[in-house]
């Protein structure tokens, strides 16, 4: 192995994988092009929009800014790993029920940002929800419906 081509082993949505890859390749490109998991989207490519969000060891990260060498031995979750088989996550159900997706490009990142919030804070305030979604841009500007979907699915009983 040289500095230019390495083997990186990690788990993705629970499956162990090993990829031959340049160590500085963006995790985004490895996920989409080598692992063919195209649910993760590329938006701005500079960490502003959150479309490429994934979870690494449970933490929300922009995969466009992650050199793949950082995930050696880590557990990565993409949008494909959020549902359990055919059973959608409650956040995903709420996005459908409340019209949280329009063109859909931001949706995988929004869902992962919401799932990550729920893991850290099962009963977030409205402010905490807004902060958790602040790194994700929706160019359709459907923010209210996205916020409502997250609020209903996570904050649950406190939402009306």
């Amino acid at each position, binding site marked *: 192995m040289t*500095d*230019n081509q390495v083997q990186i082993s990690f788990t993705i949505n629970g499956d162990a994988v090993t990829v031959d890859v*340049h*160590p*500085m*390749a*963006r995790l985004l490109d490895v996920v989409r092009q080598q692992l063919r998991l195209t649910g993760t989207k590329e938006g701005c*490519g*500079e*960490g*502003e929009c*959150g479309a490429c*969000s994934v979870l690494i060891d449970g*933490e*929300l*990260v*922009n995969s*466009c*800014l*992650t*050199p793949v*060498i*950082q995930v*050696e031995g880590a557990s990565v979750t993409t949008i494909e790993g959020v549902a359990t088989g055919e059973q959608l996550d409650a956040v995903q159900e709420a996005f459908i029920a409340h019209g949280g997706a329009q063109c859909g490009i931001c949706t995988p990142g929004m869902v992962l*940002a919401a799932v*990550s919030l729920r893991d850290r804070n099962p009963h977030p305030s409205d402010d905490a929800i807004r*902060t*958790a979604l*602040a*790194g*994700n841009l929706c160019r359709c500007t459907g923010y209210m419906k996205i916020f409502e979907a997250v609020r209903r699915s996570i904050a649950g009983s406190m939402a009306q």
Partner: protein
Amino acid sequence: MRAFLPDYRLRQAATLDEAVGLLADQPGTWRPLAGGTDVMVQLAAGALAHRQYVSLWGIRELRRIDVDADIVTLGALTTFSDILRHDVLRSEFPLLGRAAADTGGIANQNRGTIGGNIANASPAADTPPALLVYDAQLELTSVRGRRAVSYERFHTGYKQMDLASGELITAVRLPRRRGWHQHYRKVGARRAQAISKVCLAAAALVESGRIADIRLALGSVAPTVVRAFGAEAILRGAAVGPEALERAGAALASELTPIDDVRSTAAYRRQVAVNMLGEFLEALPR
């Protein structure tokens, strides 16, 4: 145009010793890569001039927060999220937490590091003004050993640092102190994600209506983050009130050297900096 990856080399260092060993190898050849939130942006834009990096991510001894009686030490790989989760930092160094919460969105805070924020040396970075207010010391490590440098003297010009070839920022030390009134304000195009137009971190020790000691530090108003020594000198010993505010505001306006750029204008930055100082001083107890 996007970078051509085979032009680049990236090697993982397993330990700090291995990292500084690589940095010492053919001086200037290897550069450190921490969380990646700045370097990878340049890579994607095809604007990353340097080609050879050593990845520090995962070096455990660099990602820690040690609390001692007089000092809190942050390893250079401490992320903004680590700062926000830490009880002592939250209660005693709130400006650092405020700045960390303003540094991009949560996904960036989970990867961006305090050492990287310093080494990237942006005059618009959010945490450095807080570090100036807290009289931070940096620990620099190389194969020759360690040295401490006052953060106040670290940035020597635009993107220039007191960092020798082969040296790595390994820790940030913050002296603990009690009873200071603290204030943080960042003005950007919007609240979340935006890079600052102007940012102020401030702290003052007030004794019976007089300012016994004060620190004022600003971002985006000079080629580096800066202490406002002129305004501080006027305020130190002064009675809290409108007269001190007026004199200090004038001193602040004259000592800042902001520029017109894509985010704002020099005139706006100077005026808002003075307004921010006023906001801080008006909240101090008389």
